[in-house]
């Protein structure tokens, strides 16, 4: 059996007295598109920031492609890509400068990067704007640029925080296609979203987090059953969460 690309083991993150992430455990396998849903402040972004190495965590471990984020952060970052919820990038660069910058950082050969950038930029309709300063880009254009930058080194794990916010319907369609293609090539995709319809249709697996604890985690079909993900999510949120479902794998 293949090893998980992302393995989150009993991770705890506290801010003062508040446990923002409370003993969360989950695995994301190669080829998985894994949706991560929860209400505002549930702990999604805190866990995502810990996975990609932007934020720290207090207990447990996170492993990416077998390497520990805690002890070998660089090895994890080399195979990981991150698309934050707000696509704030260096506005003083042009789009192509930004993509070349990331390609150099991830040491992507020129011919490979050109091929990938051309392919993704054409699909997302960004090619003609690549020579312009990013400061002139709209939110959606920045979102597309960040996404191309994340894909340029063909990451083993792509982590996205609310990736569909600000995208036009056509770009949203292409992004979903691109995520599926990346997963089909053996990478794993882990993303948070409030758009439950997208999660239900696109993802193979889903985890629901509430007040820092996982309330459900598994294949979408198992979690949803005969209902919609929205119904399941709303039921779960409304129910008194007395008994937690931490440690669900």
């Amino acid at each position: 059996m293949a090893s998980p690309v992302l393995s989150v083991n009993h991770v705890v993150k506290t801010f003062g007295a508040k446990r923002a992430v409370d003993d969360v455990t989950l695995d994301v396998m190669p080829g998985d598109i894994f949706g991560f849903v929860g209400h505002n402040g549930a702990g999604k972004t805190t866990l995502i920031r810990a996975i990609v190495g932007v934020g720290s965590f207090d207990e447990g471990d996170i492993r990416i492609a077998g390497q520990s984020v805690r002890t070998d952060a660089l090895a994890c970052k080399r195979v990981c890509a991150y698309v934050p919820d707000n696509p704030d990038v260096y506005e003083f660069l042009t789009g192509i400068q930004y993509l070349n910058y990331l390609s150099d950082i991830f040491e992507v050969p020129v011919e490979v990067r050109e091929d990938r950038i051309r392919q993704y930029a054409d699909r997302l309709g960004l090619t003609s704007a690549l020579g312009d300063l990013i400061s002139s880009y709209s939110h959606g254009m920045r979102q597309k640029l960040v996404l191309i930058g994340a894909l340029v080194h063909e990451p083993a794990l792509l982590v996205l925080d609310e990736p569909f916010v600000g995208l036009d319907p056509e770009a949203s369609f292409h992004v979903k296609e691109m995520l599926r293609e990346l997963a089909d090539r053996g990478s794993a995709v882990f993303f948070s979203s409030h758009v439950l319809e997208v999660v239900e249709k696109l993802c193979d697996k889903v985890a629901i987090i509430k007040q820092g604890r996982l309330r459900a985690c598994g294949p979408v079909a198992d979690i949803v059953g005969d209902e919609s993900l929205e119904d399941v999510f709303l039921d779960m949120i409304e129910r008194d969460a007395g008994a937690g479902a931490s440690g669900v794998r």
Partner: protein
Amino acid sequence: MRSLILLSKIQLLGLFGINRALHADPAKARRILALAALGAGVVVLVVSAYSSGIARSFVQIGLTEVVPLVAVLVGSVAGAVAAFLKTNGVLFGFKDYDLVMSLPVPVSSVVLSRIASLYAMSLAFGLLTMVPAFVVYAASAGVSAVGVACMALSVVLAPLLPLAAAIVLAVLVAAVSARFRHANIAVIALTLAATLALVFGSLALSSQAGDEAAMTALGTQLASQLATVFPPAAWATAGIVRGDLAAFLAFSAVNVVVAGAVLALVVRLFVPVNSLLMSSRPRGTFSFDGKGAAAAKAGSPLRALMAKEARLLVATPIYFMNACIGYVLVLVAAIAVAAGTLTGALSLDLLPPELVSAIGLVLPWGLAFFCSISSTTAASVSLEGSSRWLMLTAPVPASTVLWSKAAVNLAIGLPFLLVSAVFVAVSLPLDALSVAALFAVPSASCLLATSLGLALDARRPRYDWTTVYEPVKRGMPVLVVVFVGMGFVAAGMVATLRFGHAVSLLAVLAAVAASVALYRSATNRGLSA
């Protein structure tokens, strides 16, 4: 009025990151306030001493009545220069523009709250430069009660007219630059040219020093010219010196009326200019077969990080001017020395013998001064701002990220310093030790400023800025680098004059050791999220 107070309060709370520190770490907030008070105290002391010294010089050469004229002029112009440099970023191109403008407050309140901070700074400059000079004048000439009242009023009113002119100029620059793709380079070139013109102007004046008669004649001539060029200063002087209330009333009226008119104009232009600055200017002409794509070459991560830092520097005129002007000035000064020697205008033979021997001791520290009070590194981590996730998720060690920031400063500074040292070394008959010190002392000072700025900014970066002005001009690391650099050079110069080049050598070794220790502490600590 209430909205104006609230908007001003928000700006005040952002100052030095005090509000964030107050809510996250009160002890840190107290430290920030204490450091800010200390820094302000030093600035007040230095500028007051300088201003009263200049005023006393005028009194000594018999130009007592010129003191109020020069004080009003300097107080006005200093504030105007500061306001011009600040306007873009405070009035225009600030990040929270959309948020502020969507609030149910009049545009005039938004503009006033922002101009108030510019005026406050102009007023502070005015107080620092004018009050000590007025005190010297009052002590030397004896002033009537009307004169004292005119002096007090002129401190408050004098910045208004030049401030208004500076704002109009900044509005024009902002409006014009919004239409050009590489306006930032033009802004850097123009600001550099203006700064150099100012430096050469002061040099022309100071070259007359020593000849008191010539100085007096020049001073009188200059005063008359200045009064002609800027009559309001002459009107204010008439009020102060002769109690001429009509002239002073004219001075007051011109300042208040022009400031009011400019305020009205800015209120009118505020939205259009900001919209122009923030609107998209895409050319949309990129193609993979074109020039831009072909320019792509694979580089190492370090090279990519350094290129990014360099692009940020060039794209941000205020950052470039604040961090790199010292290097330009040191080169210009060295070229001036070389040119002066070559043309015979400057010769050590003209100096008294006891000063000739001191030149070799002092010059290395003179060159070091320019490069020890600024460094690109002091704001470089904070400038990552909301894009810091890119730095934090990059698969490179924190040490590489930090080294790229230090390397850019050294790559800019060291060539300027070394070329400057060569110019000075070949121009003046200095001994071998002095020549060695010419290269070593400025380089070590540059290294110290680089490491100190980096260590401080990496330790406590301030990412939540709304304009680049905040980390670049108001950032605590920037201020600390300035004061430590000034202290290092002053102490080094005095000690070298007393004990000789052995002190220079010791200072170089100490600066290098401190730089290594600071750099290591920064890399060991890593990057803050």
